[in-house]
């Protein structure tokens, strides 16, 4: 099985290398991209899409398909981390902490299970007591980080930013919570199931906005056809479509980031530590 995988990887690599031979040189002024595409984007983007940020216009409108599958790739990365690393097996030895006194119990018999709840709670070997200073500062900072992330997502079509960046910032705020408190705190706030659903929901929003355009009589991701559905200035419909798409990207990236972090850092066991 490993050998077959090796052969497939080598073949794909060879094909990619073979394909690059046909490309025009790096920065070649006579290449089709420099002659036709770039000029068109630079001169016509504002006129055609009403979006001041050229990068977003190219990313979410002219090359919407590309970005859609990029989002799918991010989703697949999260899914792969979950499928490869998630470990549902029961632990052989367990640690419990008495909530009131902080006394730690080490149970070596795998059959004995203490009831967790009011008196005892789960813990594991890697657990370190989190620091008051770090906890307080992170509690102050996390809301600001999240507001900033929403700002970056919402302003993607007017200023630098967008779904990917905003999603990463939002995901990093979740990771900061996991670092400053512990993994259990994050998982009690945001359930693993919710993260999985959100990752899929983000991709669904993107594809859904594209798919709605088709029964309205346009091509896939042809935002202009959404005019009857959305109130407001019809000239800005492309900007609004891009905003919707960016929100989808942001949700998918946030959830995928959190899933990847949680699974890698605890080797799929979702322990309390780190």
């Amino acid at each position: 099985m490993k050998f077959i995988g090796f052969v497939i990887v080598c073949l794909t690599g060879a094909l990619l290398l073979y394909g690059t031979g046909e490309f025009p040189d790096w920065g070649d002024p006579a290449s089709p991209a420099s002659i036709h595409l770039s000029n068109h984007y630079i001169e016509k983007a504002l006129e055609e899409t009403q979006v001041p940020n050229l990068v977003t216009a190219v990313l979410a409108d002219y090359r919407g398909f590309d970005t859609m599958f990029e989002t799918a790739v991010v989703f697949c990365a999260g899914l792969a981390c979950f499928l490869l690393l998630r470990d549902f097996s029961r632990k052989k030895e367990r640690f419990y902490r008495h909530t009131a006194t902080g006394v730690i119990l080490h149970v070596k018999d795998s059959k004995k299970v203490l009831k967790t709840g009011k008196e005892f709670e789960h813990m594991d070997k890697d657990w370190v007591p989190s620091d008051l200073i770090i906890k307080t500062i992170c509690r102050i900072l996390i809301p600001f980080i999240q507001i900033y992330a929403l700002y970056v997502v919402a302003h993607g079509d007017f200023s630098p930013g967008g779904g990917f960046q905003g999603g990463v910032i939002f995901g990093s705020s979740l990771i900061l919570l996991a670092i400053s408190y512990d993994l259990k705190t994050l998982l009690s706030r945001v359930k693993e199931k919710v993260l999985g659903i959100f990752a899929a929901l983000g991709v669904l929003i993107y594809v859904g906005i594209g798919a709605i355009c088709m029964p309205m009589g346009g091509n896939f991701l042809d935002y202009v056809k959404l005019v009857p559905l959305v109130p407001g200035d019809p000239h800005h419909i492309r900007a609004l479509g891009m905003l919707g798409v960016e929100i989808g990207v942001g949700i998918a990236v946030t959830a995928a980031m959190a899933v990847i972090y949680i699974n890698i850092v605890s080797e799929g066991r979702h322990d309390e530590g780190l």
Partner: protein
Amino acid sequence: MDIIVILFLVIGLFFFLGGAVGIIRMPDFYTRLHPAGKLDTLGIFAMVTGLSLYNLQHFSFEALLLSAKMFLIVFFVFLSSPTATHSIVDAGMRAGLRHWTKKKRRG
């Protein structure tokens, strides 16, 4: 006005330079964190003060708002930089790294 701005920028640069030299020259992990955490904070404070004063040369409400936003950067660096340094030192202590002393330790 320009002179004040330049003065602030130079002060900021001086502290940043001191921090960079300190990170290279200090003898061990904990002492290196000292310039990394402290001098950057003061350096960024002086720099942003200079830049926001420069921004306020043509006084208007927008310029004032922009300067306030610049000071938000300082505020967050003031919060996060010492906390980051603190947590790194904490991790070093927990990992059992000994601090540097002048005496030679017997191997």
